[in-house]
């Protein structure tokens, strides 16, 4: 990295449109960790929804667009494990047939980080323990956990901020979202989400935390059946480190 203290944030289309407070919190956390945050305003979507529903040409177009937008930056941080996994794991082979695509995609992949990963491994940032931090349970979102191998980072940040973590039964079980899956097969998607929310609620935690906006949006659809608050990791950490 040439200037280690400058990062671009890719907020993801879902955060941009449905839960901008997650992007706001992520930016503030990065600043607290000592970084200058840039927001390339041309950004929209990483292309994952189209990749997952089989529309590869459309996904590739959005991937190329994201390459153009984020290539000038030394590091790109996303407050969403699934989109980070899209760039890191899928862009290189998605752009295989595009001359120079693989090299460019791999170069971007190497500079792309999920937020908790960046805070822990790159910034070396640790929140101070906050008084009155809630009891939380953490949902391991699938792509973040299985494709990026992340989860310990979120837990470490939550513990450092003073949260007691109560593990739910099979925290790595899918929340039922699956993007287009929740539209194509909603009956099953909803049943999976209800099961997930039940298991989280059974821990007695005050807050169900996820580092993935997609999972959060899906689980919020059923969270009213419980007394739990659902919060993105960034939002909770931001509140606890003011």
């Amino acid at each position: 990295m040439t200037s280690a203290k400058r990062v671009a944030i890719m907020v993801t289309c879902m955060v941009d449109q449905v839960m901008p407070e997650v992007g706001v919190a992520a930016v503030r956390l990065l600043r607290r960790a000592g970084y200058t945050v840039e927001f390339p305003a041309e950004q929209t979507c990483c292309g994952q929804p189209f990749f997952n529903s089989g529309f590869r040409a459309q996904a590739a177009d959005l991937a190329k667009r994201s390459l153009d937008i984020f290539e000038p930056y030394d590091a790109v941080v996303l407050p969403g494990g699934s989109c980070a996994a899209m760039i890191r794991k899928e862009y290189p082979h998605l752009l295989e047939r595009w001359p120079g695509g693989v090299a460019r995609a791999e170069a971007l992949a190497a500079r792309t980080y999920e937020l908790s990963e960046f805070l822990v491994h790159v910034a070396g940032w640790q929140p101070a323990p906050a008084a009155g931090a809630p009891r939380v349970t953490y949902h391991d979102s699938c792509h973040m956990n299985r494709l990026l191998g992340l989860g310990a980072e979120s837990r470490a940040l939550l513990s450092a901020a003073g949260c007691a973590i109560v593990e739910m039964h099979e925290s790595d079980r899918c929340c039922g979202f699956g993007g287009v899956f929740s539209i194509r097969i909603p009956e099953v998607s909803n049943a999976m989400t209800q099961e997930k929310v039940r298991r989280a609620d059974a821990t007695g935690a005050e807050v169900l935390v996820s580092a993935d906006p997609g999972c959060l949006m899906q689980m919020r659809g059923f969270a009213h059946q419980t007394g739990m608050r659902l919060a993105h990791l960034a939002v909770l950490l931001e509140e606890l480190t003011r």
Partner: protein
Amino acid sequence: MSEVSFHTFRAGAALAIANPHLQSAVDGATLKFRNDRRRALADLPDVEAMRDHFKAMRAATLANLGEHLEQFERQASAAGAHVHWARDAAEATQIVINIARQHGARLAVKAKSMTSEEIHLNAALDEAGIAPVETDLGEWIVQLAAESPAHIVVPALHKTRQQVAELFTREVGRPLSADDIPALTEEARRALRQKFLAAEIGISGANLGVAETGSIVLVTNEGNGRMVSSVPPVHVAIMGIEKVCPTWDDAAVWLELLARSSTGQPLSVYTTAITGPARESDADGPRVLHIVLYDGGRGGILGTGYEEVLQCIRCGACLNHCPVYQEIAGQTYGHAYSGPIGAVLVPLLHGLEQYEALPHASSLCGACLEVCPARIDLPRMLLDLRAEEVTRGIIGPPEQAVEKSAAWLLGQRRLFGLLTDAGRIFQRPLVGKDGLRVPRRLNPAQERRLPTLAPRSFHALWDELAAEAETAPAATPPRKAARKSSRGRMAALIGASALPLAVLWHLLRRRGRKER
């Protein structure tokens, strides 16, 4: 006409989800299998290295499948077995029927065989006047209930004890209590024992075939496989061509991973190796052994991007760990092969058009890949199948239009911003404190609250957030600031153009419910 369209799949799933017996049976059984598998694998010194080794072995075998099969045929024939080759289900069932007729068989006992389910052997035997009787307890239950297997290893996993007692009561004509499991098994044993003794032919599958000796291996937990292959005078084994294993050293790894991944046992209770028919000197055992090597579309998968799926050893771990399978069980998949492996394999064997919904029966969570002993990348193949559905036009024009316009729109940052801002205005009358209110048909699960667009997008918040960097960090999010009214008016004007997209979206939602 699709066998498993979105409509049929969703309807089946809804029934399964609403069935409390099925839910509790499947939850309990799959959880037990998950826990047992974890414990069983933890006992191995280096299970990850073992899985890598196994995968490499399976890949190498498939790369030279012809040679291994020929060696298997040579060795099996040398040991006295008759080896047959069947291209499709019609050929395979005909071979079995011919053998049965040759020996004047009226009754056939069967050990659990997914391949025989795949070729619908029972129906074909019935039609030919040969009565098939399943002797695996689970298969027998499913046969008594006139259903298809709900799991590739545990066919009756979706049935509760009470349901089994009812079925047995009907079969034996005497009331049996669900609480007396020994009595139930005793009843099954008595009924099946008579069949074993009366049957002229025994039919089984084969978990694997070892090429170096021409042996087939049967794995069961009830011993019925051993009875089927040793009591009747004739034994027919049907084996998919991909199940060939070069050596006994390879077979040792195969069997260990199979038992541990499947039921969490170090080894299944009965592992039976059969090399040729009974010898002259043997006191008992079948005098005739036939082995049917079944292609059934497997050969067509070789050499394609899906070849890896043929590494499957049908352990069922991917089913037990799949959150989709756990909600709906196997019958929703419309085929004997269910769960993630079924969702990939069935469209490949029988046509993507016929099973268009199966590649979508997954949230792509990756649990299957994580647990598969052969590390088969099922999520990648589900994605590839979805992409094929798009390029081959199986996904119809309305959905293609929705997806393509949405993708195009996301490439136009300004227009996208204006349209979503318009959406913020148009959604207002529909936004309650319980989320977005839409007609019931657009949100069949009314208990689900739909997300709404935030009052302001992150793009709209950025200027204030950027300014914040110069001052001290603000304590409250800058979301309450006044809306820029000129932008709002502009958005309202543009809003009308969002209408066609909304209509297309509606079409997409409706497609799944449409009778096809």
